[in-house]
């Protein structure tokens, strides 16, 4: 069975069913929307089982031939440990986000789910694509639904945020397309495995070309990750997009940047990556500290978490720059862990906004009285975010820094300031909101409903699971990590 194709295009079933439903029937639509994301979730579990059962998942079909066979683009899907974990992250967060959306989106729910399911196809495709062109196609496909999801259902400055998203990411993918087309024109293939061999052998293309390619990759995925100073669009999206979309955005879309950097940057251009590693470490340090300092001075909850995302992505860069097994493993862990934590944080921000209609830190305070459960979850998510042992954030930060101390102790030492800063800004925001002085009392305050409880609990359970028993990830990751390490000669 061609499980991967079925998985990637499974949201289409939901799209078809939704498109014949009446827009007025809110209940059926939200039910269909959620169930449509459950299907890929189940399928991704099947894929997970297949992967561990030793089944061969990779597939390849002839697709396009340019110039009568001079350039052949195939339809090739496959997974390794890293992409499999990201697939699981995608399907899990998508289902949770869909259930949040069903509760929070008031208008045009049908159109919302249609776009949302297209977005899911794009995300699933990105992580399964085995050649660069296919990767690019799915990558671009995520742009269009995001534009509409932000622009139509977002907060006040939604259209501005939508355009800002579109143009930054458009430029990022433009760089990517030039790069991929250049690689294709030079080597005649875009298959990632083949490229690893070609670029590794050193004769096919010049050294300059390889450095140029790596630089282009850094820019393209630097927009997505984001790397400071390419982050402004991302903060805007975090603040103005609808909460359910931010869960996807912070939870999955930003991870495409990390995935691309690790999978292509290190995977294909390993030798060159070693040489620029100190530079990347510095960038990571800037991300970490800049994000942390700005998160500290924000007076709005969503901006705090937006800059916190910038800061946490810095740790991914630091881990990658360490160029040793611990570092890269830390980066991958951070990618997954931050996906879960960010999704949980924004889910709770959504809950708070529903009741209070504000996210200003000044107006929020003492929420623990009115909504103890929500406050408890927020506190837990905050602690996970600052890297409390026993939670996923700790494992990833610990490994990333362990790796970095090995290869660049000085930078790592400076980086630890960032960890302290994280604790400071998270506690400032979260403690203020939950236990701080009650500034304003909000009428009609109520605690988490069951519908909000299930996704929050599921996310928290996963965060704790990774924190307590990281082996279930390392187990899946093993082979992928070994092949990456082989690429950089480690």
């Amino acid at each position, binding site marked *: 069975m061609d499980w991967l194709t079925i998985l990637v295009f499974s949201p289409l079933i939901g799209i078809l069913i939704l498109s014949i439903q009446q827009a007025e029937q809110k209940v059926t639509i939200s039910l269909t929307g959620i169930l449509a994301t459950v299907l890929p979730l189940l399928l991704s579990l099947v894929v997970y089982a297949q992967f561990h059962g030793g089944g061969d998942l990779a597939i390849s079909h002839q697709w396009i031939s*340019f110039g009568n066979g001079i350039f052949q683009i195939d339809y090739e899907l496959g997974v390794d440990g890293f992409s499999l974990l990201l697939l699981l992250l995608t399907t899990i967060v998508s289902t949770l986000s869909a259930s949040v959306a069903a509760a929070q989106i008031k208008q045009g729910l049908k159109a919302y789910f249609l776009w949302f399911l297209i977005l899911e196809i794009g995300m699933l495709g990105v992580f399964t694509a085995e050649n660069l062109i296919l990767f690019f196609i799915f990558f671009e496909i995520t742009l269009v639904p995001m534009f509409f999801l932000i622009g139509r259902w977002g907060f006040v400055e939604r259209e501005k945020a939508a*355009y800002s998203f579109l143009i930054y990411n*458009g*430029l990022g993918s433009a760089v990517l397309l030039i790069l991929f087309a250049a690689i*294709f024109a030079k080597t005649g293939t875009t298959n990632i495995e083949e490229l690893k061999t070609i670029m590794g052998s050193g004769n096919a293309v010049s050294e300059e070309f390889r450095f140029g390619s790596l630089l282009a990759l850094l820019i393209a995925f630097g927009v997505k990750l984001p790397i400071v100073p390419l982050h402004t669009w991302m903060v805007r999206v975090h603040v103005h997009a609808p909460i359910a979309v931010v869960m996807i955005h912070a939870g999955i879309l930003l991870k495409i940047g990390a995935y691309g950097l690790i999978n292509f940057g290190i995977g294909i251009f390993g030798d060159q990556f070693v040489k620029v590693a100190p530079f990347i470490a510095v960038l990571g340090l800037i991300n970490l500290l800049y994000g942390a300092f700005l998160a500290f001075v924000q007076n709005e909850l969503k901006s705090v978490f937006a800059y916190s995302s910038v800061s946490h992505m810095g740790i991914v860069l630091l881990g990658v720059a360490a160029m040793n097994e611990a570092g890269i493993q830390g980066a991958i862990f951070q990618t997954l862990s931050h996906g879960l934590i960010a999704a949980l944080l924004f889910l709770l921000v959504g809950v708070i906004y529903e009741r209070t209609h504000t996210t200003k830190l000044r107006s929020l305070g003492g929420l623990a009285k009115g909504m103890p459960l929500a406050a408890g979850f927020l506190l837990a998510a905050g602690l996970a975010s600052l890297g409390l042992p026993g939670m996923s954030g700790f494992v990833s930060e610990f490994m990333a820094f362990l790796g970095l101390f090995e290869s660049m102790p000085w930078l790592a030492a400076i980086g630890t300031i960032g960890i302290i800063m994280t604790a400071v800004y998270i506690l400032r925001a979260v403690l203020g909101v939950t236990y701080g002085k009650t500034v304003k009392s909000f009428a009609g305050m109520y605690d988490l409903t069951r519908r909000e409880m299930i996704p929050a609990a599921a996310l928290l359970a996963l965060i704790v699971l990774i924190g307590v028993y990281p082996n279930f990830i390392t187990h899946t990751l093993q082979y992928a990590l070994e092949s990456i390490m082989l690429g950089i000669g480690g």
Partner: protein
Amino acid sequence: MDIDTLLSYEWSMMAPEFTILLVATALSLIDLFASKNVDRKHFGWFGIGGIAVALIFLISQIGHEPAMILANTYRLDAFSLSFKILLLLGSLLVLLMGVSFEAKGELTYRGEFYYLLLTALLGAMMMASSADLITLFVGLELLTISSYILAGTRKKSKYSNEAAMKYVINGGISTAFTLFGMSYIYGLTGSTNLADISREISNITPANGQVLLSIAFILTFVGLAFKISSVPFQMWAPDVYQGAPTPVTAFLSVVSKTAGFIIIIRVLISIFPFTQGFEENTSLLHSLMIFLSILAGITMIVGNTIALKQRNIKRLFAYSSIAHAGYLLVPFVAFSELMFESMWFYLVAYLLMNIGAFAIIQVMTEHNDSEDVSIFAGLYYRRPWVAIMMTVFLLSLAGIPGTAGFIGKLNIFIGALFSDPSRYILAAVMIGTTVISYFYYFGIMAQMFMRPAGSATQVRLPIGVTITMVFCAVGTITLGLFPGVILEFFQTQFNFAEMFY
């Protein structure tokens, strides 16, 4: 030439042209003698039938050995066949749109629209097949003069009159440029026949006539830039596109532009690769490509940046079509093995997405009696399927994956980087301006999905325009997902080596 030679020619080669000629003549005569009460819409269906027959004739000719008739002035080869398919298909779709066109406050009496469109098509087909500068020029003029009149057919609209006037003046100047350039070529080689020219031209050396030939190249191209609306002759496009009736605009932006590319390829490729360039071992075409490369870059930049400021939907599409002329020049500049395929495929994609978009623009502008982009506001909530189809066309124009436009752009890109030397700067300009174009294409989509509906009345969808829309949308998506369907047809059926003598 006596009657025997005349009869000995293989006239069946021209069957598609004769069909169009016959239908056009018949329509003009019927229009003359029929009473004013006869609905001229029937002309449209008659014309559509004629084009369909011509298309069948043309398809039956595929695989024909390259051949020439009329003293080597009329040529049938892979090049002419493959591009004539586009011309016929484009005109067919435009006529389908045209039968549903009803401008408010205009004369309903408009038989001339149908037969002038057919004569314009005939001119374009002659251009595709000609092997002689004179035939080429006659075809060009037939197309251009018919288009002048077509642009002015909204007699009561001052925009339409202005459009026709500007079109005539600009067209006249550009024709003069082209002719002037061609006169140099004739002067240097003593022949107007492309086969003879390509033989003679190799005698030209840097010391002997190279400068004149370079001038000829530049003048000819600059003149022909008018037809494809690229810099430096792009200024007419916005005014004419705005003033002309929408089906005519669609015709100018697709069929006429395709014809322009046909003539550019035919003339420049038949002549200039065979003479020595500024350096040893390079052709003159190669040496002069830098000139085309700059013009192509400016065309893309001008088209895409000025489009950002447009509120009138037809003007916006005029600038978009200028930008596309720039994209289409890229494969020609790169001149790699992929050139014909890139251009042909992109022209197919462009035909589908642009005519489809114009079909919807026609419906919307007629319904609202306005051409401001705000007429699209809330379309999704009134006519979801129309909005979805328009989205498909816009995404394709913007080059988003899943649509024919993306595959076309990808093909152009790979060709540009594959060529020797790689055209990195041009490719970068192309993709940079593509990102700029997101602004205005997504702006229209934002109107359709994010704004409340302006008018409550339902948009009427006549049959002709609906067929066009659906055909184009299905085509755009099919070619986006399975481009192999026509790429393979193109690669196996057409052998472009035939093009050279």
